[in-house]
């Protein structure tokens, strides 16, 4: 059986991992290469890199780093941040990315997902969505969660998959940063309407949050988190041992 995936996410700005980490056994705590290697050797099933750089120089630095990561780490790599055109897909795929994640770019240009899916295949296109409840309705937010687009999230996701998105990263703004668990209600609603893999993001605070995620929303394929891994609160290996003990199939 296919395993549930555990995916650490690294935010990169000007060539360094933002927020850093505090593992005892990693010296250069903000080097994307060191960290990527550490995670890949310690059970990560996939890595996500978000380029949160604004400048041209920063973007150059990011692609250089991506190339270096991809030449040393042999698990799937997803890249997001600043993906607005098919040329942006091309730029990161050439550096060794396997999948490209689009968010605000797809809102600005509804033609981006179909064009990229046609050129690189559905499996390459990840639709990342930041969602918050507004008057009880799941609503899409843009620009890193700062701007209410007024778009109905379930309709947006359904349409994205129809247009060729091969995977969904669902980031709940309501649970993000709170560390009280994933947004199970929102995830279940999305899993009900799409048949592509859904990755849960936002809210992981402890190992049990992942157990609850995979047992209560069994259609979810993967859990993504950043700070709980970076700060060593949860080691991926311990997490997977626990999940396996709870009858959830993971790769050890």
């Amino acid at each position, binding site marked *: *059986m*296919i*395993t549930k*995936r555990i995916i650490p996410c690294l935010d990169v700005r000007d060539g360094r991992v933002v927020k850093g980490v505090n593992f005892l056994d990693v010296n250069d705590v903000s080097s994307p290469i060191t960290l990527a290697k550490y995670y*890949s050797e310690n059970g990560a*099933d996939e890595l996500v890199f978000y380029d949160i750089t604004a400048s041209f120089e920063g973007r150059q630095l990011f692609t250089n780093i991506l*190339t270096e990561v*991809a*030449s*040393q780490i*042999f*698990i*799937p790599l997803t890249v997001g941040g600043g993906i607005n055109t098919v040329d942006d897909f091309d730029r990161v*795929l*050439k*550096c*060794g990315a*396997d999948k490209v994640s689009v968010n605000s770019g797809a809102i600005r240009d509804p033609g981006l997902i179909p064009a990229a899916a046609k050129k690189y*295949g*559905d*499996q390459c296109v990840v639709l990342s969505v930041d969602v918050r409840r507004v008057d009880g309705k799941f609503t899409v937010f843009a620009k890193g969660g700062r701007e209410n687009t007024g778009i109905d999230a379930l309709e947006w996701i359904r349409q994205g998959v129809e247009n060729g998105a*091969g*995977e969904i990263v669902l980031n709940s703004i309501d649970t993000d940063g709170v560390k009280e668990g994933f947004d199970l209600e929102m995830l279940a609603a999305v899993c009900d309407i799409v*048949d*592509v*893999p859904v990755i849960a993001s936002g809210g992981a605070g402890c190992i049990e949050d992942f157990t609850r995620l995979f047992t209560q929303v069994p259609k979810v*394929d*993967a859990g993504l988190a950043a700070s709980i891994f970076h700060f060593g609160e949860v080691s991926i290996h311990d997490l997977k041992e626990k999940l396996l003990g709870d009858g959830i199939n993971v*790769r050890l």
Partner: protein
Amino acid sequence: MIAIIDYGVGNLFSLKSSFAYIGEEAIVTGDRKKIAECDRIILPGVGAFGDAANKLRAAELDQVVIQESKKGKPLLGICLGMQLLFDKGLEYGEHAGLGLIPGAVVPMRGVVPAEYKVPHIGWNALYFPEDKPRSALYKNVREGDHVYFVHSYYADRCDPWVSAVTEYGTKITASAENGNVFGTQFHPEKSGAVGLKILKAFCEV
């Protein structure tokens, strides 16, 4: 030297990097002469069967792959590259493959139970057929080890040549081989340490 065949299909960066990482020299090339000079061949590929088969033929690389493999040169097809090794593919019509391994490539939809998502994307376990000796590719790999899959079609009607299967609601061909011709449906270059061991084993065939 290993020739990674470049016929305009897919991203060859990771494949080339993975050979460099395990200390094996590899070149990415679409040059028939260079391919013939190498002692091992990798046939990669992503996308649709018919489109890839046409591109391979248009670049006149199908014949060099067939000729060199007939001479006994180890050949490894990966993902769609593996599927092209079979007689035919039934993706958007019927298309001829290279005919190096008997069998046909068919859609997973309709074969796997309806609640299983297609494409089959993610890490899944390898199981080896009990009635055959272990493939040379798996000499340093254990049964149950996980490898990374991304595909919607799979090789069928090829039981005598299957060297590993994976479980996805039903048994799916994970790899097949016919003498010196090997194919993996999964991506060894994306399968972490296990994948690198498989690539290394191919270099030692």
